[in-house]
């Protein structure tokens, strides 16, 4: 099993505005250091936001707002998250939007076989303008394919270069030191044309 070190977990915390209140939306990313030295996490988060995440945010509904970014090193089980609070960056496409339990799905594939080495991101706050019935419009699909390129590629901060990877949470041992991180580098990020579902994010039933 492929073991890695210098693996950073990045959590992007946002909210989706619903009638019943604000729904928390989290996206978790894993990157490993492939060149240079580890950056300060504040710097790393800023660069991740500007060089990767902002491209996805630009394709989401204005009802989605990015509030916080968090990072921690998985190698040290005792390390706490470093938090950076944003000014509240909204998605780039105007309302209306689809219900919050529908999502754009970007599956992530790695070189290794098996469920542990596949991942996917669910992007909630889907603008109605990006969708025609059950699928993304051709324009939105093109835009999301460009986002997928950003998600797949390495990004460079001030002192280090980082490669996206899929961490096998059940195969890894991350709860106590010394940790064992089983992961595989992302080799491709796809875009599902069909709109996916994300039941956890459904608005509490209003009658």
């Amino acid at each position, binding site marked *: 099993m492929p073991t890695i070190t210098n693996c950073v977990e990045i959590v992007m915390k946002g909210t989706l505005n619903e009638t019943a209140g604000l729904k928390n939306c989290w996206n978790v990313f894993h990157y490993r250091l492939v060149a240079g030295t580890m950056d300060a996490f504040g710097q790393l988060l800023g660069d991740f936001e500007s060089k990767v995440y902002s491209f996805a945010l630009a394709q989401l509904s204005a009802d989605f707002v990015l509030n916080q970014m968090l990072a921690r090193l998985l190698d040290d089980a005792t390390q706490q998250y470093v938090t950076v609070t944003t000014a509240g960056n909204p998605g780039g496409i105007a309302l209306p939007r689809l219900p919050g339990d529908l999502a754009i799905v970007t599956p992530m594939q790695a070189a290794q076989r098996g469920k542990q080495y596949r991942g996917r991101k669910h992007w909630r706050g889907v603008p109605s303008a990006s969708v025609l019935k*059950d699928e993304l419009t051709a324009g939105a699909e093109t835009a999301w394919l460009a986002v997928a390129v950003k998600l797949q590629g390495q990004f460079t901060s001030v002192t280090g270069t980082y490669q996206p990877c899929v961490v096998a949470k059940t195969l890894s041992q991350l709860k106590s030191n010394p940790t064992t991180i089983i992961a595989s580098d992302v080799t491709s990020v796809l875009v599902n044309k069909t709109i996916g579902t994300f039941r956890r994010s459904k608005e509490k039933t209003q*009658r």
Partner: protein
Amino acid sequence: MPVLAPVVSLAVRGLVTASGGQIRTVVNVFSYQNTAGPGPPFDLNSFATTFHLTAWTLVAPFLHTDYLGDAYIAYTDPLLNPPGTLTTQAPPNGGTAGGREPISSCVNFWCQTGLRGRSFRSVKRFGPVPTSIVSGDELTAAAQAAMQVQVNKLLLSFTTADGNTWSPVLLSRQLSTEGPPAVFVGAPLTAITVNRTLGLARHRRERTKR
């Protein structure tokens, strides 16, 4: 357990073409018990036609025009497998044009009875939903109110041409037993509420395309 008089279940089958060309089947099942009249054998064509005229025709206009009514299928023993009895009546098509939400998005009709427990409540998933009646995660207030008026008609009893009277029930498939003779366990419907929040019917979702 409350045992019902003879029950007929009517499956309303519609077809929706997904964006990618796949044809998805959308089925809603309604059960009625025979409360008065000469009893079996039942005229299932008349049953379907009466249900069509008194109930479903009033609700279907809220569906998107992508919904094409295909068939009413009647089951005199609701626990039997398909095909059931294909009736001569055809359901109406959806009546609202314009954009629509993905097929997996639906309006939930919350069905209640006078009895407690999971076997005595249910949900009907109504879709495809036109975009014009949706705002964010919810139905617009006007659409919810208009739909509720028509959905209340699903609670009414009706009499078919053969003289039998039918009233809507919630049939517990888990507690009922297959016949012959079938034992129908359930309870009369007391309320159907249109949920403002849109629901999910993941099984109707278009198969993933990349």
